[in-house]
């Protein structure tokens, strides 16, 4: 069955799902973020919550028929071409390799580069938050160059710590909680994705841009110590 995108379909009895793509795709993800921002800026009557994921926008409603209005909004423009909405640019210090990134050597080898080149590539890559999920505030970031189209491991790593930076399938994930994973851990941050005591408990938003500059293991710990809000020494600025 050939599916045409974007498409609107029910998700449960109280939500519609607008899917922009069946595959990971940078333009489609930008379209998701832009379309969701437009729905937030100009709310449709009956819509109670919107959210964007890797390739779709969820539109939760109160039982009213919002599909026609949603269809009009969707058809109004090419959402992949819309400039990104206001967002933040984050710089999150990361300690690569060694005990903080035990799978850096094999990840670099799979990507076809030296460890030094791999750290340099990852530390200078500017990635976008494609979606938050798995644990609260936990980002899927990308999309990395083709060299990083690494398969997931066949066996799970029993656990990576909170703050672990892992890589697979042209994406980075920054773990928001200690968890098992099939992705490879290349570094570690002290960034708390979710901290209920903060004024802004969930730090990142879909569409935010992020870099992971390289710091030494000791610098990372010093930065964490000096940051009571658990941002792990991260700094951010607003992008228009």
């Amino acid at each position, binding site marked *: 069955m050939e599916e045409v995108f974007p498409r609107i379909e029910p*998700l*449960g009895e109280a939500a519609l799902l607008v899917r922009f793509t069946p595959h990971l795709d940078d333009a489609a993800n930008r379209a998701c973020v832009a379309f969701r921002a437009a729905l937030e800026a100009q709310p449709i009557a009956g819509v109670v919550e919107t959210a964007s994921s890797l390739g779709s926008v969820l539109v939760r409603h109160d*039982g009213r028929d919002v599909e026609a209005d949603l269809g009009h909004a969707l058809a109004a423009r090419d959402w992949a071409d819309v400039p990104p909405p206001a967002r933040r640019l984050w710089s999150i210090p990361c300690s690569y390799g060694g005990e903080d990134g035990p799978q850096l050597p094999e990840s670099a080898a799979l990507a076809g580069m030296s460890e030094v080149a791999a750290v340099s590539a990852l530390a200078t890559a500017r990635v976008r938050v494609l979606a*938050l*999920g798995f644990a609260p505030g*936990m980002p899927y970031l990308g999309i990395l160059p083709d060299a990083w189209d690494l398969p997931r491991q066949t066996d799970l790593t029993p656990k990576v710590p909170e703050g672990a930076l892992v890589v697979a399938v042209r994406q980075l994930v920054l773990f928001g909680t200690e968890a098992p994973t099939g992705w490879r851990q290349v570094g570690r941050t002290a960034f708390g994705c979710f901290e*209920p005591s903060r004024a802004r*408990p969930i730090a990142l938003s879909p569409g935010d841009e992020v870099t992971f500059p390289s710091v030494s293991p000791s610098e990372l710990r010093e930065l964490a110590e000096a940051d009571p809000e658990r941002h792990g020494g991260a700094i951010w600025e607003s992008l228009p």
Partner: protein
Amino acid sequence: MGKPAVIEVLTCGPMVTIQDGGRPGHLSQGLARGGAADRRALKEATALLGDAGAGIETPGSPLRLRCDGAVTISLTGAPMKATVGDRVLAWNTSQHLTAGDILDLRPTGTGVYSYVHVAGGFLTEAVMGSRAAHLIANIGAPLQAGDVLPCNASTGGARRVEAHARWGGGELRLVRTPQTRLFPPAVLDRFLTTRFIRDVRGNRQGVKLSMAGAGFATDGQLNLLSDFILPGDVQMTGDGIPYILGPECQTTGGYPRIGTVIEADLPRAMQAVPGAVLTFRFVTPAEARAARPGKPAVTPLIRDPGDMPDLLAQQLIGGVVSATGEET
């Protein structure tokens, strides 16, 4: 109302938590709404108490509570044996307790999630607009002996709420998901004619089902782009075993969802005891919305005199109530 009171947890089994309507509005940030596993029980408590706020949810764990102050409580969800001294409290009711009363709750093996609310709700710490524990997200913690739950003193009548039994499984209605059509027709047919058993493995994240025969697989299900999931989704894991997702399910996932249990039937899915038989049937979203039950009906509770050791000291009917539960 207004005078402070507390309820102290004297003893408490595992995984007893404070729950309310949860935290809607954070799906984009990866935080599920959470809240009470049996939303119908929350509505029944609200019908009994007016404002039920945040209450205690116990997954069949025994519980012993002491009132320090006069409060009106409600007992809803999976029926437990509730006693105050030698007085047996009927389930699905609101009751008035006085300072020093000790409420004992013991599981009966019927249903899974039971609720104790106080009028006005427990005034425990709120995080992001809700007092609900969300253990997967590291919000809140299970209750333990010695915990003190603040609330307001309240006066209120003894009432009974009409509650439908929802503990033994049965047929669950589903609406389709965007992945339903990825299942080949023969697999879908087999799914709809299979008698599933509610597995012993189940929690607020989801309930595992078991069945005779092969799993239910789509073509290419390991290549799906992760997408939104919602409570009620029937998700197939890699080996084709279904899980009905609960209030603390993750917000996105890469496994296909064969359908979503409708809101009207989700309390029955979450309350099905291990061993209960569950089957599935598809309905349209419009049929699902039409099936939503109305506001629970409340009547004054007329106690069985046999339950009352001191008949003359009891107020037989706590106020006059209308059919919709408002005090007149």
